[in-house]
């Protein structure tokens, strides 16, 4: 749900570089963990969970599609969530769903959703049964990561190489016209955006986006709860919290 659906080239190069480098460093760190004899058995799990997430994303639910990232995060655990998130985002970028250069940022956002989900789930299942816990945690994690996503979109400045130009005859773009505040140097800016023409601010857009995402998060939460209920009925040993309470 919180996948950052941004095309390539709309984020500053510094953001792209830092996030991709951070993910690469984290991947090398997790790879060291996965090479260990005991953790090696988790490699197939990472692969098939990633494939399952990709397939779940192809299931439409009205205007939404499933993600199952929080459920996958609970099942995969914190260390492997990053690898799962990276694989899913790389494959999505390969088919044009999100830019290739924003794979790092998308990986961090979905991994944060998985980690938040995992952490909250472990914390609240001490008091709350697993099924309502996973439903609630899914909604919370998606809303939190959506906040991050909207924050990124709001904070993102256009790359320096591409800024607005007011000289009608050249098609060049200059920084001075980037703001929506009005004409610069006596020049009249060209056509405004659709949102601008409707008199909307970013806060207005966020106010529209949040309820839509909240509805989708609720759908995903219900689905995650029902899937977990099925797993608890059929193979309870697969569900982390149930294992812990049995010990």
């Amino acid at each position: 749900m919180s996948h950052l659906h941004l095309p390539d080239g709309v984020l500053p190069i510094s953001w792209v570089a830092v996030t991709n480098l951070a993910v690469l460093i984290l991947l090398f760190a997790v790879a060291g963990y996965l090479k260990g004899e005991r953790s090696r058995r988790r490699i197939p799990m990472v692969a098939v969970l990633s494939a399952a997430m990709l397939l779940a994303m192809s299931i439409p639910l009205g205007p939404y599609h499933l993600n199952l990232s929080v459920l996958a995060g609970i099942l995969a655990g914190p260390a492997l969530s990053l690898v799962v998130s990276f694989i899913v985002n790389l494959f999505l970028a390969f088919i044009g769903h999100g830019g290739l250069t924003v794979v790092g940022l998308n990986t961090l956002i979905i991994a944060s959703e998985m980690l938040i989900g995992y952490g909250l789930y472990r914390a609240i299942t001490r008091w709350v049964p697993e099924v309502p816990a996973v439903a609630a945690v899914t909604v919370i994690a998606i809303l939190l990561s959506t906040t991050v996503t909207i924050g990124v979109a709001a904070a993102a400045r256009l790359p320096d190489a591409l800024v607005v130009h007011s000289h009608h005859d050249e098609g060049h773009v200059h920084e001075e016209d980037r703001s929506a505040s009005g004409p610069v140097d006596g020049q009249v800016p060209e056509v405004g955006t659709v949102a601008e023409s409707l008199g909307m601010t970013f806060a207005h857009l966020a106010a529209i986006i949040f309820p839509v995402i909240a509805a989708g998060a609720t759908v995903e939460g219900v689905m995650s709860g029902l899937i977990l209920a099925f797993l608890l009925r059929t193979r309870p040993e697969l569900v982390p919290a149930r294992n812990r309470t049995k010990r």
Partner: protein
Amino acid sequence: MDIALIDAISQGQVGQPGVWHGQGATAKALFLLGVVVGALAARNLYAQAIVAYLVAASWYLARPPWRQVLPLLVYPLLLSVAFVSLRFGLSSPAAWALILRGISLAAGIILVLLTTPYPQVFGLLQLFLPAVVVDCLVLCYRYFFYLSASLAGLFAALRLRAGWRRGRPGHNVAGLARVLGSFFLATYDSAERLHQAMELRGYRPGRLAPGVWVGISRRDWPALVLGLGAGLAGIIL
């Protein structure tokens, strides 16, 4: 799903292989690098348009099955248009440049994947990523097709049992949850079987990725020239 279509085209099972299929993976990676550099460095609409034109020319040389692959570009196009529509303070040249940039980059990466068999793609990824992560990518790719068939079978079973009815969302959601629950179980079982098979074969990280490294040869000149052109257009113009 799109991944299956891209795989079939890259292996030459769908459509006729064009010039681009004969280009080496390294040359195509350098082409993509040129497109990325050119698109990101372009400072005006004209430079961005030239980069887009060179990518379009590459698609023409590749001669993919147009009707099947053009829909792959719809999503990046919609993303770019949506971003531009919601972006405040953009003039029309900048808006067009952003749309062209998003489409050029998406078209570049999709073209490379449409014409490069996956062992060569993973061979390239091995250069940048940890071996064990590339192993996960390879396994994910293989199991995507296996689990896709499994999921299709589960949905067929759901429909045959009348578990999917129009106008009954509650009933459908419960049925879908059962399907996805079964799907997760199939996923776990697949992972367990896979782990046992890997142990029996003496798995060591890095051995799973086919790692087909294809160097640069003379016949790779179209990819290299187009990539260089795109990069230079973005930097110089």
